[in-house]
């Protein structure tokens, strides 16, 4: 131990110790010379004898240094210095290698950060493993079929034995917003109504202030709100004094009781792509009669597995159904871990991206191995000379490995920079509807992953040239490059194999990206049933307690003024938007038999006249609403094709009666509109006239315009304010945004995989180019002889390109087999594209063949333009 410390100390005191040693050795020689002179030698003879007995001053010093210091570190430092020198000398190679590595490692770190945040890391709650998500199980999609009535929630909570506690929030929070007044321009906020134990059960503590208390959950109790961290910092400049102040929301005074921590972002976890500005207590009695409204989360008792909770609920649900047939619920609760609910849907896609980026790293490593091999071959003379001068072969291998590691570290440093930029961009992008994306950052585990990946890559691409250098003999190397022997056969084969594997990997990536990209294009091509382009939505205010005629007049006037704004072609009103929030009701066809609690479910839209035209929807039969459909005329309804088919089983629904909120005559059939996603077929939908429906879930103005949003904003604001001076007019939302948000996860995945595939293609073509141009340059003399003997330039080019294509075809053949396996594996991510899509596969083969011919053509041209005289004199 002491000895080691002493060695480390000596390592840092080299100069001083060397001076001391020099003095000591000089003294030694002087003493020896003195003694020899005393024995009768001449001065010169005495000195010579002393030196002879000493036996070499430099080796003695070297031995001294090795004994006292850290020789391994010393030689490593030497290697590093040497490497930096060679890297500077070969700047072009260094830059290319560093860039390749930076992109490959950076992409890997960034993707790992995403995967880690979304899949690997536990949710940011206390004991997140105990949290369970509950869903109602009805056949069709939509929030109404996934949520529970208040009664069911309360019964489940009090009667189960699996959960320590259960909590809930109102899942329909997005329909209604809150108007903040009294603090400058009126604003619109989104508030989430949460049950009493919501934050305590999740283990979320406010960063300032307190959580809600019991009185705040009572009807007509104190109004309280907790602000989200984002709202607090952006709207109130992170001023802690806001706690305790009161705000005017929807004309009611609400006290801010606290601010939630930055780590809690409701939208990011439960509802990707939406933002929640504040939280307030849900008054259960207010929504008791609204049917399915609550999303439920449970916390399992310690040690209770999810399976036994499932078993308990499978028995509990039928019992509740028997006791309370009046509750609108299927009662069958589907239980999954909260983690599964949050990230289960994106798991497969993310794993695909992870694999793709891993392939990129593999291709990059193989590419670098190839580049380094080519370089080490041209450096073989240098190694031979070093070897002849006494450097051990192990030392040369160590030198090569040092070079690889330094390259890798440089690449990793640049790559981390890239990853930081990428993750920052992702975390701040609000347009990608992936859960938890806001929390993505390069953290400790991402750093550890980077180090691991870097070391792995360095070993992978450093080993090949290292082994090669270890195997070659001095004589062979000196002779070979001294007098242009053709390239050693084994090495040529090895390098060709590397290129072939690169092409095969690129092939797999291209095929995967190809089918995903084509799926994405197919999704974009889907007939939405409405025209999102040039349509804008905007939340508007209305008086909820105004009598129907007054409300109708208000809406009518609003639309009249809006349509008068220059650039507005049409305007209408709806309470919900496709691909946005949704709610569904049951309807009954008159004259059809239903069990007592049964009905046909359908998504509900309450809309103003002109809605179909403004949205760009199709009216297939009958007529649409007018302002003449009023409370005093016959109640009417529009059904979409799916609803007509479901309700009337293929018979003509037009003119028939259906009971929704009341008995209504079907006056028109409209084309299906994709409601929940672009990929899924539209479900049954029904449209009620705003002039005949009290139950409006919210109100949004829809504008169809010929001008960009900025051009009409001021005019629309003025028009709306002229009817209602207090109306906040912000957040013009283009409908295209809804579509973009709905496809954003797919777009994200496709973008990444395609980028990786192109990168793979680029790397593979670089690899081909490197190998061919290297082998061409080694054959300069052979080419010169053939030219001198009368071969034409065209023949030479053809032979080089043929060699390139041979390599490419082997790679493509191997890659295609892999590609078939991979596209099968990702079949569930595809949309209307078969895993063996002939277009993709043909395209992939053509692209690869084309790119490799180009990569081979450049060196081929160079070869054929060689001057035979110069070629023969080369070397």
């Amino acid at each position, binding site marked *: 131990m*002491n*000895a080691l410390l*002493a*060695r480390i100390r*000596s390592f840092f005191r080299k100069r001083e110790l060397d001076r*001391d*040693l020099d*003095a*000591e*050795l000089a*003294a*030694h020689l*002087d*003493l*020896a010379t*003195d*003694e020899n002179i005393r024995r009768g030698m001449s001065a010169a003879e005495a000195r010579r004898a002393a030196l002879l*007995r*000493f*036996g*070499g*001053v430099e*080796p*003695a010093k070297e*031995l*001294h240094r*090795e*004994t*006292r210091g850290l020789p391994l570190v010393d030689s490593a430092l030497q290697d590093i210095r040497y490497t930096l020198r060679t890297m500077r000398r070969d700047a072009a190679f260094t830059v290319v290698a560093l860039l390749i590595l930076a992109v490959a490692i950076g992409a890997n770190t960034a993707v790992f950060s995403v995967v880690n945040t979304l899949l690997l890391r536990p949710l940011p709650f206390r004991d997140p493993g105990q949290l369970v998500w509950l869903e109602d199980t009805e056949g069709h999609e939509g929030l109404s079929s996934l949520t529970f009535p208040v009664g069911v929630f309360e019964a489940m909570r009090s009667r189960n034995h699996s959960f320590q506690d259960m909590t809930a929030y109102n899942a329909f929070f997005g329909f209604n917003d809150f108007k903040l007044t009294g603090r400058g321009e009126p604003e619109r906020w989104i508030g989430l109504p949460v049950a009493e134990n919501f934050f305590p059960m999740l283990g979320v503590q406010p960063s300032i202030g307190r959580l809600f208390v019991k009185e705040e959950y009572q009807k007509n109790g104190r109004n309280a709100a907790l602000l989200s961290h984002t709202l607090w910092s952006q709207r109130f400049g992170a001023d802690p004094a806001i706690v305790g102040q009161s705000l005017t929301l929807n004309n009611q005074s609400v006290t801010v009781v606290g601010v939630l921590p930055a780590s809690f972002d409701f939208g990011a976890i439960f509802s990707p792509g939406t933002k929640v500005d504040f939280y307030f207590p849900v008054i259960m009695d207010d929504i008791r009669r609204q049917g399915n409204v609550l999303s439920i989360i449970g916390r399992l008792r310690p040690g209770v597995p999810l399976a036994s909770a499932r078993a308990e609920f499978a028995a509990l649900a039928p019992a509740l159904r028997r006791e309370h047939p009046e509750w609108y619920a299927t009662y069958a609760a589907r239980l999954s871990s909260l983690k599964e609910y949050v990230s289960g849907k994106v798991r497969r896609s993310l794993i695909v991206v992870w694999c793709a980026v891993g392939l990129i790293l593999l291709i990059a490593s193989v590419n670098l191995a190839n580049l380094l091999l080519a370089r080490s071959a041209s450096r073989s003379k240098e190694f031979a000379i070093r070897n002849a001068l006494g450097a051990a072969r192990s030392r040369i291998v160590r030198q090569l490995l040092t070079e690889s590691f330094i390259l890798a570290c440089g690449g990793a440093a640049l790559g981390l920079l890239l990853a930081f930029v990428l993750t920052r961009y992702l975390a701040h992008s609000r347009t990608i509807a992936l859960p938890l994306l806001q929390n993505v950052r390069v953290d400790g585990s991402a750093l550890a992953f980077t180090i691991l990946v870097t070391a792995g890559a360095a070993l992978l691409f450093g080993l090949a040239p290292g082994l090669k250098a270890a195997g070659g003999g001095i004589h062979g190397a000196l002779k070979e490059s001294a007098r242009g022997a053709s390239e050693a056969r084994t090495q040529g084969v090895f390098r060709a194999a590397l290129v072939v594997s690169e092409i095969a990997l690129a092939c797999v990536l291209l095929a995967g990206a190809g089918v995903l990209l084509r799926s994405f294009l197919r999704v974009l091509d889907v007939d939405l049933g409405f025209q999102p382009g040039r349509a804008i939505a905007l939340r508007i205010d209305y008086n909820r307690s105004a009598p129907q005629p007054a409300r109708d007049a208000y809406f009518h006037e609003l639309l009249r003024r809006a349509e008068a704004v220059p650039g507005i072609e049409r305007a209408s009103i709806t309470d919900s938007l496709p691909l946005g929030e949704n709610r569904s009701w049951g309807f009954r066809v008159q004259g059809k038999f239903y069990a007592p609690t049964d009905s046909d479910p359908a998504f509900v839209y309450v809309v103003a006249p002109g809605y179909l035209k403004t949205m760009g929807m199709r009216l297939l039969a009958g007529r649409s609403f007018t302002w003449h459909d009023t409370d005093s005329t016959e109640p009417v309804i529009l059904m979409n094709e799916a609803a007509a088919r479901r309700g009337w089983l293929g018979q003509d629904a037009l003119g028939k009666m259906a009971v929704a909120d009341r008995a209504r005559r079907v006056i028109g059939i409209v084309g299906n509109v994709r409601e929940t996603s672009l990929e899924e077929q539209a479900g049954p939908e029904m449209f009620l006239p705003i002039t005949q429906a009290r139950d409006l879930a919210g109100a949004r103005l829809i504008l169809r315009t010929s001008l960009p949003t900025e051009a009409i904003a001021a005019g629309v604001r003025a028009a709306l304010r002229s009817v209602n001076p207090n109306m906040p007019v912000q957040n013009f939302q283009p409908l295209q945004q809804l579509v973009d948000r709905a496809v954003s996860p797919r777009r994200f995945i496709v973008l990444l995989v395609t980028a990786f595939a192109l990168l793979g293609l680029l790397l593979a073509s670089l690899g081909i180019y490197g190998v061919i141009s290297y082998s061409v340059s080694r054959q300069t003399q052979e080419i010169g002889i053939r030219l001198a003997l009368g071969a034409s330039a065209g023949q030479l080019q053809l032979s080089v390109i043929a060699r390139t294509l041979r390599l490419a075809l082997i790679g493509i053949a191997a890659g295609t087999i892999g590609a078939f396996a991979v596209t099968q594996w990702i079949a569930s991510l595809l949309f209307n594209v078969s895993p063996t899509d002939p277009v993709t596969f043909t395209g992939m083969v053509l692209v690869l063949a084309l790119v490799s011919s180009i990569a081979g053509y450049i060196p081929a041209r160079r070869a054929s333009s060689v001057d035979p005289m110069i070629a023969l004199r080369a070397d």
Partner: protein
Amino acid sequence: MPSSKLDLLQGTLDVMVLQTLYALGPLHGYGIARRIEQISGDQVLLNQGTIYASLVRLQQRQWIAAAWGVSENSRKAKFYSITRKGRKQLAADAAHWQRLAEVINRVLALPTEGGAQ
């Protein structure tokens, strides 16, 4: 003839240096090298330069100490002396070599079977 000289076994030089310093008191590097050559009757193949690696090793283990001083013919030289730790180590090493030598001797003294050629 150099080839008839003994090659030093690993670690033996360290013991010789320690023993020399123990027996003769503080000495400089040249002095130690000369004493070892003399005591061994010039039997040991010793490049005098190698002694310095041994000296720095012993010093780092704190078995010997070093200080600059002046030699008998008034030249500046570094003098080494054995420390208490070094004496303990020497005792252990000496016992070890003694036992090894005995064993080797006994093995070599085995009677040859069938007569030596």
